[in-house]
C-alpha cells in the first residue's frame, strides 16, 4: 500500500445497549437516522469531505447489516476504500475487542501496512459534520503528539462528561473523567489524532499492562498526560450528538425538522453521503396531510404525517396519523393506526387501528425494534 498522510480508524463495534431494541439486530453505527442515512454515514462522509481516503472500520457487535451496507466504500467516494476489521484469530488464539484501545491494538498490522504519518481515531456512533483536515492542520501547527476534539458543554452538565482542562494555547493540563466538581466545560468527543509512531508504541505498552482496561479515555490519554506529552485540544463548535439513548435518538431526530433546523442536512458544501437503493419519489395520496416532516424516497403517505421523520420505503395508511415520531425504513403504519411520540423500527408494522405511543408528555417515548408486528393488546 502506498504511503498516506492520515489513516482513519473508525470504531464501529459498539452495541449501543441503551438503544435497547433498536440495536437488537444491528450495531449502533448501522442504525437508520434522518430518513435515509445510517449513523455511520456521518463519520464516513466527514472522512471523504476531509480528504481522508483510507478508513479501517472496526466492527464486532451484530456486524452483518453494517458490513453489507459499507461494501467497499464507493458510496462515500473513499478512493482507497474501506477495510472492514472484525476481531480475528491467530496461532495463539483469538479474542474479542476488549476496549477502544485494544480494538486498535489488534489491528496495528493494518496501520503499519498503510504507514501513515497520522492516525485519526473516530467513533462510528456520533452525529456531527466536522472537517478533520482542519483538526489535522491544528495538530501539525501545535506540533502535538495527540490532539483531542472537544466541545464546550453547559457547565451544569459538565460533570457527565470526560473533561479536558487546557491552558490558553490549548495544551491539555488535566483530564477529568465525569468529575463531581468540573474544572473545565470542554468535553472530549472521542475523536483523536495521534502521531502514528507514538500511537503504535503506546498501544504496544498498554497491551502488556495487566492493570489497563485498554480504553483511550481511561488509560491511554491519562498516561500520555502523565508522561508530559504534547496533548492539545481542538475545539469544535458545530452540531454534535451521540444519540446514545432512545430519548436522545428521538430528540436529535426532531432537531432535523423545522424551517431552520439546528442540524441542517441541506448545507451544500459538506454533503452527507449514503448507500441507498433506488426507490421512486415519495407518494402522497389524495387525502394525505404533511406538516413539518422530512420524507425519504419510496414512501407512501395516505394519512397524516405531522412533525416526524418518515424514512425510505415506509407507509402511512389511510386515516393513520404519525405525529412527533420516527418511522425507520420500511415501517408500515396501517390504516387508522396512530403513532405518537414513538420510534417504529425497520420493516416493523403497526396494525390497523392500533395506538402506539402517547401524547402524554410525561410518558417515555414508545419504540419497537426491527421486523416486529405491533397488534392490538389482548
Amino acid at each position, binding site marked *: 500500500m502506498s504511503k498516506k498522510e492520515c489513516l482513519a480508524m473508525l470504531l464501529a463495534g459498539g452495541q449501543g445497549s441503551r438503544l435497547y431494541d433498536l440495536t437488537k439486530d444491528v450495531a449502533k453505527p448501522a442504525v437508520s437516522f434522518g430518513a435515509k442515512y445510517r449513523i455511520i454515514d456521518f463519520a464516513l462522509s466527514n472522512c471523504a469531505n476531509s480528504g481522508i481516503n483510507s478508513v479501517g472500520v472496526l466492527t464486532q457487535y451484530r456486524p452483518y447489516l453494517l458490513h453489507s451496507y459499507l461494501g467497499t466504500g464507493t458510496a462515500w467516494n473513499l478512493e482507497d476504500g474501506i477495510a472492514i476489521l472484525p476481531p480475528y484469530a491467530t496461532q495463539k488464539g483469538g479474542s474479542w475487542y476488549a476496549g477502544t484501545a485494544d480494538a486498535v491494538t489488534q489491528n496495528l498490522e493494518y496501520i503499519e501496512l498503510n504507514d501513515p504519518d497520522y492516525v485519526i481515531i473516530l467513533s462510528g456512533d456520533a452525529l456531527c459534520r466536522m472537517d478533520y483536515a482542519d483538526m489535522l492542520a491544528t495538530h501539525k501547527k501545535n506540533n502535538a503528539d495527540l490532539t483531542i476534539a472537544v466541545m464546550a458543554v453547559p457547565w451544569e452538565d459538565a460533570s457527565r462528561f470526560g473533561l479536558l482542562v487546557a491552558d490558553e494555547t490549548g495544551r491539555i493540563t488535566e483530564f477529568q473523567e465525569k468529575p463531581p466538581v468540573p474544572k473545565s466545560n470542554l468535553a472530549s468527543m472521542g475523536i483523536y489524532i495521534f502521531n502514528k509512531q507514538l500511537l503504535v508504541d503506546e498501544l504496544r505498552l498498554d497491551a502488556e499492562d495487566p492493570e489497563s482496561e485498554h480504553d483511550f479515555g481511561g488509560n491511554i490519554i491519562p498516561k500520555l498526560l502523565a508522561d508530559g506529552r504534547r496533548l492539545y485540544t481542538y475545539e469544535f463548535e458545530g452540531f454534535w450528538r451521540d444519540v446514545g439513548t432512545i430519548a436522545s435518538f428521538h430528540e436529535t431526530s426532531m432537531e432535523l425538522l423545522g*424551517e431552520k433546523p439546528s442540524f441542517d442536512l441541506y448545507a451544500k458544501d459538506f454533503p452527507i453521503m449514503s448507500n441507498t437503493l433506488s426507490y421512486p419519489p415519495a407518494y402522497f395520496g389524495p387525502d394525505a396531510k*404533511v406538516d413539518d416532516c422530512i420524507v425519504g424516497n419510496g414512501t407512501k403517505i395516505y394519512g397524516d404525517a405531522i412533525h416526524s421523520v418518515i424514512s425510505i420505503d415506509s407507509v402511512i395508511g389511510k386515516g393513520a396519523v404519525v405525529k412527533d415520531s420516527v418511522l425507520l425504513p420500511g415501517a408500515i403504519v396501517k390504516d387508522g393506526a396512530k403513532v405518537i411520540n414513538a420510534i417504529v423500527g425497520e420493516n416493523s408494522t403497526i396494525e390497523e387501528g392500533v395506538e402506539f405511543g402517547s401524547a402524554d408528555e410525561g410518558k417515555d417515548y414508545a419504540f419497537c425494534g426491527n421486523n416486529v408486528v405491533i397488534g392490538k393488546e389482548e
Partner: protein
Amino acid sequence: MAKAIGLITANYSTKFPSPLTDSRPAASIPFLGRYRAVDFALSNMVNCGIRTVGMVMPYNYRSLIDHVGSGREWELTRKGGGLFILPGSAFGTSRTGSRFLLRDLAHNKIFLERDTAELVAVSACNWIYNVDYNDLFEAHKASGADITVLTQAARDKDVDVCSFEVADGRVKGVKHGAVFGDTAFLDCFVIGREKLLELLDWYAANDYLDLFEALAGDYDRVNVQAFDFEGYAAPIFNKDTYFKANMDMLDPKITHELFSVRPIKTKAHDNQPAKFITGAKVTNSRISGSCRVAGTVTNSILGRGVVVEKGAVVNNAIIMQGCTIKSGATVEYAIVDRNNVVPEGTEIKGTESAIFIKDKG
C-alpha cells in the same frame, strides 16, 4: 435463462421538435422526478440476467454519459462483459423517427461478433414498462421465430408509435403511427445473434433504413412473431404522452407494477430527504429527494431539489430538477424543465389539452 446480450439504441430523435428534446437526447429525458428514460431499457435487461449491454449513443450524448457512466448502478462494471458505449451516426447522417437504423447496427457489428451469446435483446428507450425478457426468450424459442417483437394493443392514437400488421401472431407489415387497437410496437425485440448479423449483411446496401422498414418486403421469409405484453406500457414520444405517462405514476397500482416487482435502477445521488415545512399542502403527488416544499402541490411530480415556496401553487404539473417556484407563483398544466426559477407572483399556465412547456432555465 437463455444466454443473451443486450443492445440499446439510445439515439432516437424525434421528427417533431420539442423544447424537452432540444437540449437532450430522448433517451435521457427525465421521468418521474428521479429517473431517465434509459433506466427502463437498461434495468429490464439487467433484471433478466443480461450482463453485456451495448448502447448506441446519440450525437448529443453528454447527459446520457453523465447518467449511465460506467454502468455501475446497473451492475455493469465488470471484468467480462459490462456496458459497451457504441458510436451512432454522426449529426446530420442520423435519421429522425428511426429506432433501429441499420447503419447504426452495422457500424457496431464487432460488438455482436465478439460475443458468443445465442440471443440479442434489442430495445430503444421511448417507452416506459418493466418487462421480464425471460418471457420473451421462452416465446421466441417456442415459436421458432427469427425475431420476436414486444407489442401491445394501442390505447390511443399516436403518430410516433410504430405498429404492425399481424395475422395469427405473425407480423406481415409495419407502419408509422398507431390508432386505438392497433398492434403497437414497444420498440423492443429478441433475435438470434447470428440471425441479426445475417440480416445486417442482407441489407448492407439499404443501411439508411430502419431494420423493420428493410424487412417490409421480406416478412414472408423472415418469421417475425408478435409477443403481447400484458403489463403497463406507455410511450413518451411527445409532450402529451410524456405528460400522461408521468401522471400515470400517481396511481400506486401502476408504480407498484413498474418499480416493486423488478427494480428500476438509476444513477444514485446523495440527495437529502424531501422536506416539508409547516403550511405545506401536498396531495396526489410524487416528491423527489432534496425537494423543499412550503406551498401547495396537487396532482404533480417534482424532480430532485425542487423548491416550492410558501404561497406557491403547483397543480397538474411536472417540475424538473433544480427549479424554484417562488412565493405566490402558480404553475398549472405545465412541464417546467430543469433549473427554472418561476418568479414571485407569476403564472405559468397551460390547459388540460394544451400542456405548456417552459424550457430549461
